[in-house]
């Protein structure tokens, strides 16, 4: 891992949540990017090629998180990105959907920002979604 600043893309339709995540992850290690909906998230990702993407599942704009995740993982230039799915649904079927879409981790709202940081920091070691165990 290079010491150069990594890019972290925050995708959520909620302004307050984006603000919270920026605040939590803005400790200097990451160059923070954000998007409020799927299509813009994809566009930013293609442009910036982020290392980590925090991706909300339920978003307006005709493209939900899973679709965005699938699109990113399908793109050879972007597929290396570590994608953490953020969802408020927390249902079993969502984990399966996340797996199917190629997500690397899964966090259920509300989640602990500290926990999220740990997940993002230890991303290479994570192979399974963390799920609701983050409480």
């Amino acid at each position, binding site marked *: 891992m290079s010491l150069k600043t990594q890019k972290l893309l925050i995708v959520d339709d909620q302004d307050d949540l984006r603000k*919270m995540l920026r605040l939590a992850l803005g400790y200097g290690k990451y160059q923070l990017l954000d998007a409020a909906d799927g299509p813009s998230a994809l566009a930013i990702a293609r442009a910036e090629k982020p290392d980590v993407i925090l991706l909300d599942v339920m978003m*307006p*704009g005709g493209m939900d998180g899973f679709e965005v995740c699938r699109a990113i993982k399908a793109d050879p230039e972007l597929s290396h990105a570590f994608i953490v799915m953020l969802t*408020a*649904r927390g*249902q079993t079927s969502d984990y399966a959907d996340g797996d199917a879409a190629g997500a690397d981790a899964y966090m*259920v709202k509300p*989640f602990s920002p500290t926990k999220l940081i740990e997940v993002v920091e230890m991303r290479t070691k994570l192979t399974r979604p963390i799920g609701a165990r983050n409480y």
Partner: protein
Amino acid sequence: MNAPALRTKGPLFRLTAGVLLLAGLYALFGWLAHLPELIGGTSIYAAPIWLPAGFALGALLVYGRSLWPGIWLGQFIVILVYLLPQTGTTQAIVATSIIATGSVLQALFGLALTHRFIGRQPALDNVPEVLRFLLLCGPLASLLNATIGSATLAVVASKGFAGLLLEWLSWWSGDTIGVLFGVPIFLAIAGAPRVIWRPRRLTVGLPLMFAAVLIFAFFYAIGRLEHENRRTEFERHAELLAHTVQAAFASANEAARSLADYFNASEQVEANEFLRFAGGIHQRHPDLQALEWAPRITDAERAGYEAGRRRQDETYPGIHDYGPGGTGTPARRRDAYFPVHYIYPRAGNEAAIGLDLGSEAIRREALEAARQSGHLAVSGRIQLVQEGRQRGAVLVIAPLADPGRGSDRAAGYAIAVVRIADVLELALKPLLHKDVAYRLTDLDAAPAMRLLHETGKVTGPPLYGHTHDFDFGGRRWHLDIRAGENYRFAHRASYAWAMLAGGVAVSSLLSFFLLVFSGRTAHTEQLVRERTTELEEARAAAEKVRQLLEESVGSIAEGFTIYDENDRLVLCNEAYKSIYQTSRDLIVPGNTFEEIVRRGAERGQYAATGNIDAWVEARVAQHQSASGQRIEQRLDDGRWLLIVEHRTPSGYIVGNRIDITALKRTAAALGDRNAQLDAIFQLSPDGLVSFDLDGRVKSVNAAFTRMTGLAAEAVTGLSQAGLERQLRALAEQPGQWPGLESCFRAAKVGADGTAPEQADRHLLPLQRPHAAVLDLVGINSDAASVSRLLYLRDVTHEVEVDRMKSEFLSHAAHELRTPMASIFGFTELLMHQEFDEATRKDLLATIYKQTAWLVDIINELLDLARIESRRGKDFSITTVALPDLVADVLRALSLDAERWPITVEVADDLPPALADAAKLRQALTNVLGNAAKYSPAGGTISLRGVTRVSDGRLQVGLVVSDHGIGMTPEQVAHVGERFWRADTSGSIPGTGLGMAIVKEILDLLGGAFAVDSSPGAGTTVSLWLPVAPTDQAPEKSVAR
């Protein structure tokens, strides 16, 4: 003999008793065989059947050879009794012992032959055995004692050869017949094996006993007849013989008289004259010993006479006396002498010349008798001087008259000398027979001198006798002729032989046939007995079976009958009689079915017979063509019978009758229930498909058709696969439906008839005939005609509700979690990080905002939950004046009037609604809020109060129209769903519960709500409420 009684004693006692009994039996039957003789009957056949010989052999065969002393003893007694009178004691005992021993030997010989050639226990029931027995034990063995016995008897009784032969034959045939009869008789009484012999007591023993008596009597009668014939024959012979003898003597008389006449007629008879004359006479009577002339010479004339004679004959001995030794001494002196002067023939008679006939008493007496009578006289028996002592003779004396001296003194005598033996033998020559004796006596003579002649000898006591008395020269002569038993044998012996041989032959045949036939009969009888025993056993078994059958049949609760091939009742049980109580008296074995049925019908036993003749005919035809078909018969008393009749292979008709009245009633009840079930089946809101035992669709109900659009006719008879194809064609996603079989795998009817809970539902989403979801439940059935049941339930609504619930939960979670995420996150950040005051305030403000939002959501959720859970029970329905209410709402809502100017057209005379004012206010608030929210760019919102008539009822409505973003028709359809939001961009805040609450409230108020919208043009929402009754005064103020 009584064997069982004997066995109880010791062996020696038994043997002794056996011996004595056998001896007694032997002697008894031996005595019986001789009985006719002993009581004086005379027959030429003595003891023609000697049964003791047979009994002897039989006894040895049955009880063993150790009984032989009995034979010896028995025979000894019999023969001794027979022989003793005939011969000397010693001789008799010796002979009897020999004969007895012979009998024993013969019996032992027969026993040995039997054992060797026939067997230890001769059954004598087949031809070869009987033939061997008849040949060996009869004729062959009997040779032994016949020979010994007859020889012994011949020696003792000195019989002739003919007699011996006949005796032998008689003995042999007697023993043979005795054995041929006696052995079977004895064996029939006591022989083994008893199975064979016992029945022969009647078939063999008795006939043979009878035959023995018959043959015995026959022989006796024949012998007796023959005996009489012989006697007659003998008499004839004897008489002839007597007359011959008399005639012969009479001729001597004649000769003497002729000579006398000659002398009387002549003055002087010279010697040569005498010789010539006497020679002539002698020639005619050659049986005369001599002819003599004896003159009367006085004592005075003696010397001259003797001298004269000597002159003529120098050898003249002179007058001499009769004396011992023949030639006597010169005669002593007496008054007169009667010397033999001439004699012819001289040769052989010389000694008589000169003999003074008066010198001997017998001669002198005869001379004196002739002189006194002047006629012929015959002397007693004299001994001729010219012969030895043995031969007797008599003199026939004819007196010559002396002319000068009257009749007291004869001048001389003419004499014929008759030697009796010569005369008799000459006379009897052609009449001599064997075993005949003659005796000629002179009855006038002194006892010692009576016997004149005796010839022949008779063996044994004479059988026949004949006597003849005749006068001979003044004397009474007596001829006695006797014949011994050999006389008859010598005569016609072949006849006797033939008779005896015939007797043996007849006995053999009789014995043979009786034994053979009785043997066969015994065999047959034994066979018959065995068969009879088998039959008895079989019959007993059959009887047992029949009894068992009867008992079994009796114990059957059903009416049971058997009719025979002529349709007559053979057997029935009590149950049958009880069923047909009315015709009970007719149900009697032997009565025909038709009789029983017809009489029963006439008595009104059966229901609905109609024309009795026709009914009976039909019933009988049914009965007689019985082949197991089930016939139901109704009786007049309302009972129902099930009749099953069979014709058995033997032609009998077996019938069963069961009272099925209860069954019938049950069936009727069942029919009712079936009808009910059918109705339920058809009326059931759930679809039902039943499959028959072949797995084909049996029936479907109306609900099925309603759900699937498949008509009953279209699916009935389809296989399960066929039905599955039909359903699959209707499915929303045909490829994803696993098919019917999986439904059945899941469930089976439980023991209590209930279907167990299914773990999984088998849902079939249909596309046609209309979108619906069916829940399929398959049940495997054990019912008689249904193998499977398919139960289809329309769960479209249920599924939808489920989906909605699930979605609601999902939405609710999402809506709750989203603000929580911000709150949680910021709070944690605030806790762990230091922020400057401005940021901290901003963060807290955000937390506050999100918390408020969260509270809103929770409140709305709780509202909705309350409304739903209470279902309007907490509603306070009153008459609500709408203008007031609208005003209240608008005031409370206080929308930005510039952005969303509101035009209100609610007339004061609008009919008041019947509603819960608070709830209605909430609903209107939500609608107005939405109208504002979904007009982000702003725009006029109009609110109108209207009325309409729906379903004949007046409704009052509040119509809110905006000019917002509007909705597509698809979106319109979702309005009222929880958490469903027309805006998914997130730019318009909202919980997605507002319209849901509106819908709930209006539903509960009995109103309705309608949405009309088009994208970009705006949306119109109408709230319809029931109108309050007019007589009710409208309330101005509504309680909150």
